[in-house]
């Protein structure tokens, strides 16, 4: 699997990540590291614990990383959660909707990890 195919499979924007990191070598390095990064796990754990501060912190951090990695689906989802829990913002979504979004994030993350593993294996 090529890097470009990997991005296609996980709903990423290869053009964007290349604009940011410029070199395939760097994209390769950071997409491999993404599966070891605990930021998504932190967010999911915060959801389970229903901890609004941590929900904000983790989603905010995840948004930055996914943005720079061109993972636009995950970026978009984490961004919506960050806005939802940003201190001072009124809540707009129901707990159920949040749960659904977190589940979606989990699913996409798992899929991404699998694909990255496959990519790593060649």
């Amino acid at each position, binding site marked *: 699997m090529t890097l470009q195919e990997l991005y296609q499979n996980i709903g990423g924007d290869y053009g*964007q990540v290349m*604009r*940011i*990191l*410029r*070199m395939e070598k*760097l994209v390769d*390095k*950071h997409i491999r*590291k993404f599966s070891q990064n605990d930021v998504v796990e932190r967010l999911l754990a915060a959801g389970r614990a229903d901890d609004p501060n941590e929900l904000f*912190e983790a989603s*905010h*951090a995840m*948004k*930055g*990383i996914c*943005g*720079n*990695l*061109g993972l636009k689906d995950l*970026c978009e989802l984490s961004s919506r959660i*960050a806005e939802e829990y*940003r201190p001072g913002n009124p809540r707009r979504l129901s707990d159920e909707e949040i749960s659904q979004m977190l589940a979606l994030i989990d699913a996409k993350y798992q899929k991404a990890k699998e694909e990255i593993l496959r990519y790593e294996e060649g």
Partner: protein
Amino acid sequence: MIETKQIERPKLILIADDIELNRDALEVVLDGQYNLLFAENGKEALEIMRMHREDLSMLILDLNMPVMNGYEVMERLREDELLQHIPVIVLTADKSAELQALQMGAADFITKPFDIPEIIQTRVSRILELSEGKKLISAAEHDRITGLYTRNFFFEYADRLFQYHTEMQMDAVVMNIEQFHSVNAVNGREFGDGVLKRIGEEIRAFLAGTKGIASRIEADRFDIYCLHGQDYRAVLDRFQKAISRFSPNVSIHLRMGVMPWQEGVEPVLMFDRAQTACNMVRGDFQNPLMIYNNEMQAQELLNRRLLNDLSVAIAERQLQVYYQPKYDIQCCPPRLSSAEALIRWKHPQLGMISPGEFIPLFEGNGLISKVDNFVWEEAARQVRVWKERYGFVLPVSVNLSRADVFDPTLVDRVVRLIGENNLDFKDMKLEVTESAYTDKANEVLNTVCSLREMGFEIEMDDFGSGYSSLNMLSDMPIDVLKMDMKFVRNIETSDTDMRLVKLILDIAKYLKVKVVAEGVETEGQLHLLKDVGCDLIQGFYFSRPVPPEEFEKLIEQEIAIERS
């Protein structure tokens, strides 16, 4: 010329972000244009900044980091005098953090994701440019030694205060150090700079208690523009005490001139006047403070008018040359031996102006050469007229000022004058004041020597009023000593003065030169001087200085005596 862009120093940027992805992403955008350093949290960033505080041009700072976050870093920077000048660009994924970051002192921000590298590059380079500009302005704005404003910025700010803050009534204060160049020469530049720095600190401490601004204008001149009505004696006293504590072994004396607030007088003029006041107490260690007053203002206005009017005065012959006779008293009766040419100014509006008023003024700025030249031309012409009319020469002495001595055209001018009027060099005598020899004595001696070798007789004027040393006197090219009039004034009543006169006559005898006693007013003085062997006298006893027509009567009397 080398363009300034070519002499820029390489820029060093620190990127502080805990996420390697972000550090890498910024590295690919900025690498090649800048030298980069990296930190993974705020604490590490501060450590690196302290290490590189001299050469670090910028910090790019992520806000959310472990150990120490970006907000805390910014707070620490704000309190750190050594680091607060380094501009910070904040990294944020988050619009709402921008305002807070800017309020905390960030110069700009970059939003994640970094998908438009040109934005990052442009922002970084623009902030660097701004900060370089700020650094240059700050360097030009402040004096390196004292940290006070430099001249141009000081006057700019003083003007602004004057124009836009008319509710503030400001005094102008000028402060100098006595003989600062000698302090520097004897104790070294480093010591001198230390003195200036200490004074700068005192001025700042003074201004902390009132409203005002200050500058080291140049060398040892400090200008302070501060709220009207300070007790300047106390202020100067405080500065003087501080500097004496700082320099217990080398005595440093300050002097101060103050121009108190006056409605509508702009700063430049205020400081001119404060400087005038400050100059008036030069060398006066007992009373080193002078407040500018109306009398000084009147004097200044008069001076300015005289300076303006001089050229017209020469052209319109308001300047006139008067002659005062010198009599040889060893003859009986005393015989007219020569005359001194003296300048008079009959001003159309101000009337007769005393030479005591305008000579020192013109001596101060070199215009005295114009006056002297006028006197020489007039006197030479007059000697010629009398020579033709009476068939003999009555030598006339003219003054030679310091400024004349340093004029390279001097010798040519006097030679031409003698030639044009068909005179001999011995027909004119040159009077050089004793004080003309005090500084750059060798140059003065050389010029006077060459004039004497040509045939001019040299008279030393005001002898005893200056500081000639006896050994210098024997080297001086002189033919006549003119004893200062203050010695003669009291010889009838004061034994001491009489003894001094005898002493001067002894010195003259030793030097084999004649003596002219000036300021002789009474017959008693004449007899005393004659008895102790004085050769010539000049003074009101025989005649005050008179216009040429009147002087001719003295010549004619002399001719009558000769015939009888």
